[in-house]
């Protein structure tokens, strides 16, 4: 910060990421409201705590190894480079004892950048949380939260959401606002857990017909989704580098114009992503309202699915493209949700696999066609964006890094009887004991007041 311009740029960048962190907190508030609203009264507090405690657990593990993985694995390792590719000293700096992991005056960006990525990690874990409510053990869910929050999402970001990730180099993978690297992987992870965990008791009749287990509080669910929309602004903005000159991009871009860029260092503008965010939200809500015939939960979820579908290319799409892509993704994810539920008896309590997983997957594939031939990077020699690269990328996100690790861990936990709560507890309700104690405390107070009243 030896010049005024350098100081302003640094302090602006620091403040920029800090604001995104504060905004992204709202995503988590929204997820908690949404999940608690979707659960039945007798499971409320357990549902809230299951989600809330992923915050400290993903935070500490992100500090211990998640952030290091991001900087250590862009080359695979062994695909386009070794551990720490392209600069091993960067990865070393982000070990929990590394030089960039504590307050220092010569590095004002690493901490806020770490935090912005951490909030993405919370989001990924929180997406899984809603799908598995009312029957998963807290211990098991927190293992999955750490798995996706601090391991698999970090690997996928290194591979496909890093300016030098091997998927960007070899596949031309483009996923500017995380259709795949957050949403598809989270949907795949949720599905991997769900197929082992099984449905909530009573979800399916004896002949396999699904029953609707309605949200206890639909209003709270919708407001939760509204808050997630709000927090999503922070998420989108955090996906950009706010100010980059050609020098920052190693002189690949000529001239002297400063620009915002995506995580791939490809130029974009805040205006572009703001318009496209809103248009894809609109496309999703319109399609969600239509396909669900005005159901509030699916209309709000449709808005989210619309954004998620268009997110892979929302740095570049025309707003009308974002609108239509958002609508298509929402329509398809809704249909897929009910088809999978009927066919495979998967009980996804909040539609997380559909809204995040299917919409994210579809969004990646669509981006491959719509952005076909666009440079995936400012660097020479990287593959261009193309349908096959995007499709392979979607498979990697949803199935390879999402479904598969979660399914394996779920199988292991189930073999030790550590995945699902005991049947009696599920029937009683997870809050049964607490509710009994609360009722006893209430009765005790009432009796005390009655005796005071009688003696006066």
């Amino acid at each position: 910060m030896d010049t005024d311009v350098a100081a302003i740029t640094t302090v602006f960048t620091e403040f920029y990421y800090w604001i995104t962190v504060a905004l992204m907190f709202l995503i988590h508030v929204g997820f908690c409201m949404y999940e608690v609203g979707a659960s039945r009264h007798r499971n409320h507090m357990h549902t809230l705590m299951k989600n809330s405690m992923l915050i400290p657990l993903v935070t500490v593990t992100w500090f211990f190894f998640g952030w290091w993985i991001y900087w250590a694995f862009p080359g695979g390792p062994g695909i386009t480079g070794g551990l720490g590719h392209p600069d091993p000293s960067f990865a070393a700096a982000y070990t929990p004892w590394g030089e960039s992991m504590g307050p220092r005056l010569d590095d004002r960006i690493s901490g806020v950048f770490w935090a912005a990525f951490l909030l993405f990690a919370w989001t990924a874990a929180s997406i899984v949380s809603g799908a598995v409510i009312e029957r998963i053990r807290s211990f098991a869910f927190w293992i999955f939260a750490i798995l996706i929050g601090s391991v698999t999402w970090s690997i996928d970001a290194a591979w496909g959401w890093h300016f030098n990730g091997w998927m960007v180099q070899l596949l031309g993978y483009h996923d500017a606002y995380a259709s795949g690297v957050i949403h598809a992987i989270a949907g795949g992870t949720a599905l991997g857990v769900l197929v082992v965990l099984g449905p909530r008791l009573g979800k399916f009749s004896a002949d396999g017909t699904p029953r609707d287990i309605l949200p206890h509080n639909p209003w709270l669910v919708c407001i939760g989704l509204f808050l997630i929309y709000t927090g999503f602004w922070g998420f989108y903005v955090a996906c950009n580098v706010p100010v980059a000159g050609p020098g920052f991009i190693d002189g690949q871009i000529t001239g002297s114009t400063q620009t915002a860029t995506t995580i791939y260092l490809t130029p974009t503008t805040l205006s572009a992503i703001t318009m496209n965010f809103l248009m894809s939200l609109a496309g999703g809500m319109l399609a969600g309202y239509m396909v669900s015939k005005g159901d509030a939960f699916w209309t709000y979820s449709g808005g989210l699915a619309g954004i998620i579908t268009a997110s892979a290319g929302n740095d570049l799409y025309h707003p009308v493209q974002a609108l239509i892509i958002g609508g298509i993704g929402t329509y398809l994810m809704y249909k897929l949700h009910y088809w999978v539920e009927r066919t495979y008896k998967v009980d996804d309590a909040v539609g997380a696999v559909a809204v995040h997983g299917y919409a994210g997957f579809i969004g990646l594939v669509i981006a491959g066609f719509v952005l076909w031939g666009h440079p995936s990077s400012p660097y020479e020699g990287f593959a261009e964006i193309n349908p096959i690269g995007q499709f392979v990328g979607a498979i990697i996100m949803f199935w390879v890094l999402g479904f598969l690790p979660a399914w394996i861990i779920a199988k292991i936990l189930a073999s030790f009887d550590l995945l699902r709560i005991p049947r009696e507890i599920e029937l009683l309700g997870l809050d049964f004991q607490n509710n009994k104690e609360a009722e006893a405390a209430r009765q005790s107070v009432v009796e005390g007041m009655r005796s005071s009243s009688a003696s006066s």
Partner: protein
Amino acid sequence: MSTTPISSWKVDLAEVTQIYPWVGSEVLMAWVAIILWLLWHVWQLKHENAAYDEEIAKHGDEMTVRNAVSDHE
């Protein structure tokens, strides 16, 4: 004497790097935190299992479960 590398702010800030206490013990601090994190999971697993066992012992009889299902909300 200071636990941080800073004993006076009469310095050129361009020369200042770390400002936290106990610079040089980062590896030790990280391992202490990692061990505490793992112990937390061990404690939590035991606590969760014990809570379920206790609840089933107290309320897991057929009548209570049936009533709870009837009150189901």
